[in-house]
């Protein structure tokens, strides 16, 4: 199985994760619910993870997968803090709509 995977050009993985990454970006750009936006960011991070894993395999180098672990660590920490911030804001505004927060400007 691994050998056959090796026949898939690495370019495919690159393009594949690029597409996922861009979908994540697209989501960030178009959604108004902060939680969904955060999910889209997670999707972006997953695209990165996938890419790292692919490189790790193709390079036979464990570092890539180690990096994936650290990204997961960060993703978890960010999610915790981020959701905490969202809850705090929800307490004040009763909303998670990011478009409503535009008081600071110019």
């Amino acid at each position, binding site marked *: 199985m691994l050998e056959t995977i090796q026949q898939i050009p690495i370019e495919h993985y690159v393009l594949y994760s690029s597409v996922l990454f861009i979908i994540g*970006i697209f989501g*960030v*750009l178009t959604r*108004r619910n902060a939680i969904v936006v955060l999910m889209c960011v997670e999707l972006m991070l997953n695209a990165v993870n996938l890419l790292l894993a692919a490189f790790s395999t193709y390079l036979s180098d464990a570092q890539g997968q180690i990096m994936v672990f650290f990204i997961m660590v960060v993703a978890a920490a960010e999610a915790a803090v981020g959701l905490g911030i969202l809850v705090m804001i929800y307490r004040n505004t009763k909303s998670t709509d*990011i*478009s409503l*927060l*535009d*008081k*600071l*400007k*110019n």
Partner: protein
Amino acid sequence: MNQLIPLIPFLPLIGFAVNGLFGRNLSKNTVGIIGSGVLLASFLLSTAAFNQVAASGPIQVTLYNFFTVDSLSVNFGFLVDQLSVWMMLIVTGVGFLIHVYSAGYMHDDEGFYKFFAYLNLFIFSMLLLIMGDNFLMLFFGWEGVGLCSYLLIGFWYTNHEYGKAARKAFIMNRIGDLGLLLGIFMIYQQFGSIAYADVFPRIGEMSLDAGIVTTICLLLFIGAMGKSAQIPLYTWLPDAMAGPTPVSALIHAATMVTAGIYLIARSNALYSLSPDAMHFVAVIGMATSLFAAVIGLRQNDIKKVLAYSTVSQLGLMFVALGMGAYASAMFHVTTHAFFKALLFLAAGSVIHGMGGEQDIRNMGGLRKAMPITFWVFLIGTFAISGFPLLSGFFSKDEILAYTYAHGGFGWWAVASFSALLTATYMGRLLYVTFFGEFRGTHEQEHHLHESPAVMTLPLIVLAVLSVAGGFLNVPHFLGGHQWMAGWLSQVIPAAELHLDHHTETLLMGTATAVALIVLTVTWMLYSKKANLPVADSAQAGLTRWIANKFYVDELYDALFVRPTERLSKAFHYYVDIQIIDGIVNGVGAGVQRLGAEFRKVQNGNIEYYLVGMVAGAAALMLTLWL
């Protein structure tokens, strides 16, 4: 003696300083004595210098080095040669008389001490001008006398019009000064020095480009035009009559205005190399002489008539210079100093007696009330008109003779016509003022009196000089030796006069006849009431133009003054504030506008920010293809 030379100019300077600083606390007599005393001392020293020059030639004294920049080394030094010592005698001598006169004339003026201080300062400047041994010293004096002229014309400063006249004099002089300055630069460039001793003797050795010499001469002549009131820079002189009358006598008749003549006479070596420049000088001189004489015909202010007369006479002197008769010009300078100072001072005496009145239409018949003044005025008038054997007769005839010899009949005819006009307006002035019935107010008639001795004595001295001055330079064909031309010949090579006795006699006879006829005719005309001048507004046609001085002042006003003022405002409001500062502020505003645009992007909405980031990233990614 040499050590005493600097005292000649510096004594008046000391007089200026003493009177200027402490005059307020001194009595008027003391002020007058100090002011006149220094002049007398200077005059005596000048006579001593004259003797010395006569005995052992020119004296050169250097006080200190004014500055040295490269080869341009300027000394504060004096050169007393035949020419300058002659001028010194005139300046200090006539100056002394006028000082004495002023002590009486200005006696009731509260600015008495100031007046004497200024006069002394003027004498100092004038002496610098004459005695300087280089062009820069000449320029010091040149501007200095201009300054004093400004101060004295505007002496009665509470009158704004007088102030304006003073300013006009100074500014027109400065226009000329610029020419002179440029001429000095050019002399320095050509000769590497501006000391007379380095310039004139070397002209012969150097092969100078004719164009350059002409340019130098013309530039110097621009200076002379300003100082000596020649077309087109003459209009300040009639206005300068705003000053007290002794000032007009001293500065605007006898001394300062002849500085232009002195400059060209001093630079005769240069002018002799440039026929074009000399021709130009002659043309300007002739035009001025004629033009001013015509205007003089219809002036009713006693001083204005004399002023135009001065302009006219100065023009005649330039004609002489242009004809190469430098010595004759200097001769006329001398006699003119006598009789014009006399005329002015006599006019001052009249004004004094009339209580400030200057309009001759309000005078008349003064010969009875002011006999001395009348007689000396008569002498002055006859002298300037060329009455035989009076001083003007000799000096003017000499000029006419040279004009005939060098310029031909045409020039001579025009010059003679100018002389005829001179006799006309002078005769008119004399008769209207002193003959006929008194036309002033009753009070004036009551006030009318002869001036005190302190004023009449100088008048008498000057009258004597006006009568006898001509004998300084009696022409050969009348049995004289042309003493003055001989005296000056060290500095000014004598001009050649190739006329036979017959022609000379004819010329002189014509001139004499003209003078006599004119004086008689004018007597017939103007001693009667019918031909008295009428009010300015009642005149018409050419007379009106003449009475209004051909509207030259108005022309200058429209051509130079008002456009400059308009330009000044336009530059300030439009160019400076609107355009230049507008551009400066516009740059600032442009930056701000840019900021305003950028600011809109920062609209507080996070989606915009994110899109901005992504779009920016995409755009920057494009650089990978560059």
